[in-house]
């Protein structure tokens, strides 16, 4: 357990360069070395986020929180659907070679397709708004999840399964006690990758298909009015949000599951 002072020192050495970079940016903009409309000072961008945070819609919600809320529930719907269906299909592919033989070519062809490519077609099918955005977020997360889960479930050694079989384990026990823990690390890698892809694609598709809310919509819409401080503030916000998701939420899940089981793959 690192001591408190060491932790503080670590985060200070992490934050100092960032702070310095912001300072340089601030100075460049304030001294008008770069046109302050093109590059507004970060303090102004952050103030602008604060103003959006306290500004209210007619029915009393904070505008910034509404944007964040819309992006979040779209991400969660798309991602969770992808996680459930993707892990199920991936495990099925890992356990049965015919299922694998059939789906593997389809998945390999689909994995490199940028999720955003589906947006125009989905807009045609589902219209502008949530259904399209959630569907694209789903597609972006689905394929990496299936791919990694299948790879994990297939990597299990036959001997392990034989050993449990000789000791009298039935199919269910093998599934829950052998296959699932074995694949857990791969599944989690797939989920992490899927979440990151889903998030990136979500922001992009919000620029194309959102109607009123969402962080992607917020920054793209601000462009029309040359509100560069909203765009920069939004970009900073996007970085902070995903940094938090990755380093707080996902870290916690990893610590509770695969690290505890000693199954972490070192990459």
């Amino acid at each position, binding site marked *: 357990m690192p001591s408190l002072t060491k932790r503080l020192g670590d985060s200070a050495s992490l934050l100092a360069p960032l702070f310095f970079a912001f300072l340089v940016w601030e100075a460049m903009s304030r001294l008008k070395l770069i046109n302050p409309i093109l590059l507004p000072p970060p303090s102004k961008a952050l103030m602008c986020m604060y103003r959006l945070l306290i500004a209210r819609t007619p029915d009393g919600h904070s505008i910034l929180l509404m944007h964040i809320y819309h992006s979040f529930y779209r991400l969660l719907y798309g991602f969770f659907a992808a996680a459930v269906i993707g892990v199920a299909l991936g495990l099925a592919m890992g356990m049965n070679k015919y299922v694998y033989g059939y789906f593997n070519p389809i998945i390999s062809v689909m994995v490199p397709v940028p999720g955003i490519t589906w947006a125009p077609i989905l807009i045609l099918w589902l219209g502008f708004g949530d259904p399209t955005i959630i569907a694209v977020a789903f597609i972006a997360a689905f394929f990496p999840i299936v791919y990694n889960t299948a790879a994990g479930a297939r990597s299990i050694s036959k001997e392990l399964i034989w050993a449990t079989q000789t000791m009298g384990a039935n199919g269910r026990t093998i599934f829950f006690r052998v296959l699932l823990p074995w694949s857990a690390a791969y599944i989690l890698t797939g989920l992490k990758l899927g979440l990151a892809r889903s998030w990136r694609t979500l922001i992009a598709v919000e620029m194309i298909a959102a109607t009123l809310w969402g962080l992607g919509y917020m920054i793209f819409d601000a462009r029309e009015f040359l509100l560069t401080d909203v765009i920069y503030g939004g970009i900073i916000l996007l970085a902070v949000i*995903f940094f938090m998701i*990755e380093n707080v939420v996902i870290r916690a899940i990893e610590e509770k599951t695969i690290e505890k089981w000693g199954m972490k793959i070192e990459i």
Partner: protein
Amino acid sequence: MKFERRSVISILENVKKSLTEAFSFMLPLLSIVLIWQLIVELKIISPRLLPPPSEIAQTFLELSSQRTGGVPILLIHLYKSFIRIALGLSAAVLFGVTFGMLMGVNRVIYRMLQPIISFLIPIPTLAWVPILLIWTGIGDKTIIITVFLGAFFVIVYNTANGVRNVDRHLIWAAQIMGANKWTLFTKVLLPGSLVSVITGLRLAVGYSWRALVGAEMLAATAWGLGYMVFAARALMAVNVMFVGLILIMVTGFIMENCIMVPLQRRTIERWGMVREM
């Protein structure tokens, strides 16, 4: 040249094996196309929403025979996209590897830049597009810069980590034997970090490919695969959209499986640096 009977047989066997593999790979894809055609034939889904594969093939042929200035339209779309990704990506490799190496060899530079890079990596690449549209306007510049940004940070990150993770003992050994800084860099640090650099490159190709298609939707003026799909929506040209989608699928598949995977395998395996997993 002498052909031995055995080698001819083994070549034939290899051909047969790869043909069966190709066949078992294509079969599921063909079955999907068939089901798709059937769904439309049976009028389960309106062909205005989901055109049958036969019609898409027809549109594909039309687009590849229609010419502007003597060049088939599809080829121009492909060519434009290719140029953009090639320019953006090669700039990213050049600057990214240089930056990453600097960060890898110098601890002060690493301490200064690493937090900034980690802060910038999670930003979705396309979030830069609105800003770039204001800075550089609609067109090639914005798209190429987006591609660059998509690839740059992962390359820097992986290169820097690759150099930093080179085994200390190797460096000490080289130093004891009198290697100067330059030799140390070219003979130890550079080859030692290559696995990681190539991993970064492979990730970067994927990132910049995604960035390209998205940026072309938001910022292209007339050409490019992303633009093709996006513009077809406004005209309700569903067939064209699907042609574009399939082209993107095929291009992505070729890039990943015929370029990046063999590159990674060749270089890394040849130099005997396969990572134990």
